[in-house]
């Protein structure tokens, strides 16, 4: 497997004018194509900073980030993103909210302007897959929180990006909805094979979804542990109660605990 993303001693210092705050220590990291990586850690550990760096939304103060063969310089294009806040456009229907990815994507915008047809089909079948066929023409406020998050996820992957960044996308949902969406997420990832980076507070979520979990320390952020998750796929909710699964969760818990006690 090839590395899709490569970070070479990437660090981040925020300059507030009065003082300099280091958010991220120089970090080396590579993420293989098609890999599902989860990032966990206490709040303020630079998880979100790491994500903004990876997508080029914030420029790193040191080091180099490469996606594919290009060195990142400005926002990475053609990356899908989903946040905790679904941030759908309230004046657009579910379908139109998903289609926006084609409308602005540098790879698809021309074809989309010529003929929406095939793109509407793609978006519709994706929505059908996550069980939202009936809600295609509804507006966001007519959907439940879980449905909005499904739309959000659809928008981030519909245009087949190479990289999908998920920043606690299920964080605000209730436990049942969240677990249901893990299964949806896993299925989409297996079918489509994109590279995914998931940022989360939920250790079970991290273990359930990812191939590898990295643990970050409190500010300044730094990677203190990497844990490959070798559980077979597809994973089920049943599996989360097995010893092997629990072992992973305990291990991660312990790493975060010791880091907190030390600081």
């Amino acid at each position, binding site marked *: 497997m090839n590395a899709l993303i490569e970070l070479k001693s990437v660090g981040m210092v925020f300059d507030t004018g009065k003082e300099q705050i280091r958010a991220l220590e120089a970090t080396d990291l590579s993420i293989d194509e098609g890999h599902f990586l989860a990032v966990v850690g206490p709040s303020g550990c630079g998880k979100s900073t790491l994500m*903004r760096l990876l*997508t*080029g*939304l914030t420029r790193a103060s040191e080091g180099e980030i490469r996606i594919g063969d290009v060195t990142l310089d400005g*926002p*990475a*294009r*053609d*990356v*899908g*993103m*989903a*946040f905790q*806040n679904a*941030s759908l*456009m*309230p*004046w657009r229907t579910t379908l139109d909210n998903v289609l*926006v*990815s084609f*409308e*602005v*994507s*540098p*790879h698809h915008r021309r074809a989309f302007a010529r003929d929406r047809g095939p793109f509407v089909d793609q978006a519709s079948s994706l929505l059908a897959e996550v069980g939202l066929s009936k809600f295609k023409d509804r*507006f966001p*406020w007519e959907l439940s929180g879980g449905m909005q998050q499904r739309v959000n996820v659809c*928008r*981030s992957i519909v*245009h087949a*990006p190479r990289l999908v*960044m998920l920043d606690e996308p299920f964080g605000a949902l209730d436990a049942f909805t969240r677990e249901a969406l893990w299964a949806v997420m896993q299925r989409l990832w297996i079918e489509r094979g994109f590279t995914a980076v998931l940022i989360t507070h939920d250790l079970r979520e991290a273990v359930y979804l990812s191939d590898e979990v990295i643990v970050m320390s409190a500010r300044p952020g730094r990677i203190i542990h990497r844990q490959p998750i070798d559980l077979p796929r597809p994973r089920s909710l049943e599996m989360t109660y097995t010893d092997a699964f629990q072992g992973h969760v305990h291990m991660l818990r312990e790493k975060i605990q010791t880091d907190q006690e030390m600081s």
Partner: protein
Amino acid sequence: MTDRTIERLMPWAVTIGFFVVWEICCRLFDLDVFILPAPSDIWREAIKFAPELAYHSAQTLYTTLAGFGLAVVVGVALGAAIGSSRLVYRGLYPVLIGFNSIPKVALVPILVIWFGIGTVPAILTAFVISFFPIAVNVATGLATIERDMTDVLRSLGASRRDILLKVGLPRSMPYLFASLKVAITLSFVGSVIAETVASNKGIGYLMLSASSNYNVPLVFAGLLVLALLGVVMYVAAAMLEMRTSAWAFRGSDVVS
């Protein structure tokens, strides 16, 4: 009667009740028509001067709408510039605040020096008094886009222009239409002020000349026509708002 019909009849009941109380007070205390004419006196005078009232209200309506139209064009352009560029915001905002603090009636004499009396100063007064709330509201709509939203679009590959067209402008529509309701009433005020000070046409002028002829009922008739026109324009703006940004009201049935 259901609660809903009562609710619907309320505005009419209150309006009619207001005039009835007015009429009763005038008769009961035998008020002089020069001080406060009764609604019936006003109505009689309004019928007598109906052609004049119609002619002058058409003029007022024309200057109001012309000034309002100008205010929408300039206000939206200005608001878009301020809301989407920090630099423009920094530079222009203090100037705009200063300009907005000037009582607009003070501008009328200057406009008269430049354009003479009549239609043009009225249109311009209506314009200068009403573009500010439009510009501020559009700018607010643009400046308060959630960062998550722009982050999602930027990482998809959207340009600044894409974000302005696909998120910024649709998002600022409810702000714009909310401001139109305020702006249309303001531009009406501007028109009438200019007509009162410097014009030979319009309701403002009609009221001024009626009062110098001691025709107090006609002055009041002018006032009532103004109120009526104001309500009609406000409702038109409110209906436009409902139609164009229904999503912001989420299916509720408020018109205000």
